[in-house]
């Protein structure tokens, strides 16, 4: 028998280009993306905390850099990302112990995760805005009383 016409390279059929990803798939890829965003955000958060530890001058320097009109929106998004990743992580743990592994449950728990993230984001921002007038805790100006207290301590 002669060889079939396999000489030519076969094309690869379309995949992402045509597939209508179901909700579960969209949430799966979002879990990864939010993980990356969280890591990046954590680095910034670490810089902020370290700056605070290095004293007033350094802290104010860093604050000048990051305190832009957009910062609060970035933080709202980041909070959502955090709660989404947290909720979805818990969903993955449930799956790993064998719970809720069918289409209906997966869609239901997925909706629950989205709701959880939205409610938590809203709650946290309500809470923090209630506690502080600004979006950030500005370093309190060093008053004579504070200086005296610190000197005494």
């Amino acid at each position, binding site marked *: 028998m002669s060889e079939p016409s396999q000489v030519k390279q076969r*094309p690869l059929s379309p995949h992402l*280009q*045509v597939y209508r990803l*179901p909700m579960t798939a969209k949430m799966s890829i979002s879990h990864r993306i939010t993980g990356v965003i969280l890591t990046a955000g954590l680095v910034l958060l670490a810089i902020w905390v370290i700056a605070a530890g290095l004293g007033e001058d350094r802290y104010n320097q860093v604050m000048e850099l990051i305190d832009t009109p957009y910062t609060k929106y970035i933080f709202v998004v980041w909070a959502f990302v955090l709660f989404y990743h947290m909720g979805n992580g818990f969903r993955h743990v449930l799956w790993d112990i064998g719970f809720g592994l*069918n289409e209906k449950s997966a869609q239901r728990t997925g909706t629950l995760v989205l709701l959880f993230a939205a409610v938590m984001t809203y709650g946290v921002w309500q809470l923090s805005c209630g506690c502080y007038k600004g979006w950030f805790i500005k370093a309190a100006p060093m008053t004579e009383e504070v200086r005296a207290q610190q000197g005494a301590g």
Partner: protein
Amino acid sequence: MAKFILPKKSKVKKGEKFDADHDGDNTKKFSVYRWNPDEDENPRMDEYNINLDECGEMVLDAIIYIKDNVDSTLTFRRSCREGICGSCAMNIDGRNGLACLTPINEIKGDVKITPLPHMPVVKDLVPDLNHAYAQYASIEPWMKTDSPAPTRERLQSPEDAQKLNGTDGKGPSGCILCFCCSTSCPSYWWNPDKFMGPAVLLNAWRWLTDTRDEAKGERLDQLEDPFKLYRCHTIMNCTNACPKDLNPAKSISEIKKLMVERHS
């Protein structure tokens, strides 16, 4: 590293248009993936406008109608036309399924038909399944026993048989090997050479849960690998795509649980 875009020679171009609606009112446009190995061209999407009053109600009926009446060069696999042979698996309107079980009227707008995703194409809607079949063979999908053969069949209790058939008839033995699930799985798209894919893992589970099979350890050893089993990230496209309503995601999870049990 996963390649999200198609290679240059695989990019899909616009194709020809065929008007075969015969001035009917009940018409539908079918946009179908075409590639001919005898021409040195890129794949293309041909459009067929057909009169639904002249053909049956399933997508398979429409493509058979096109082949019979409009364009006899259209190539696809089909056999039983009732969802048991698994031949007419393809991507219809962005979702994998069997053309014979997909009603045309459930699809809004034009019907876009492409071969099973991320597979080498032999011609038109016919994908090359050799690799998937080889992976299936690698799990040794037959009963393996050490104990001497009884003088009659190896018997099973109805409860044990239910592990294979499922209480609702949707257990792992219902798999028809159409590979709708494997080719819907992004993990399988990016690692087809190393990851077994949902169809093969579902069948691995079918043998692991068979009370007559005596090679459980050996079967688990074979899957103990960072890729073969653990590339499943519970995306659940497999369960969503299965035209037989089986649950490959659950089967994979059961195998993972067996692995944990074995190590503890």
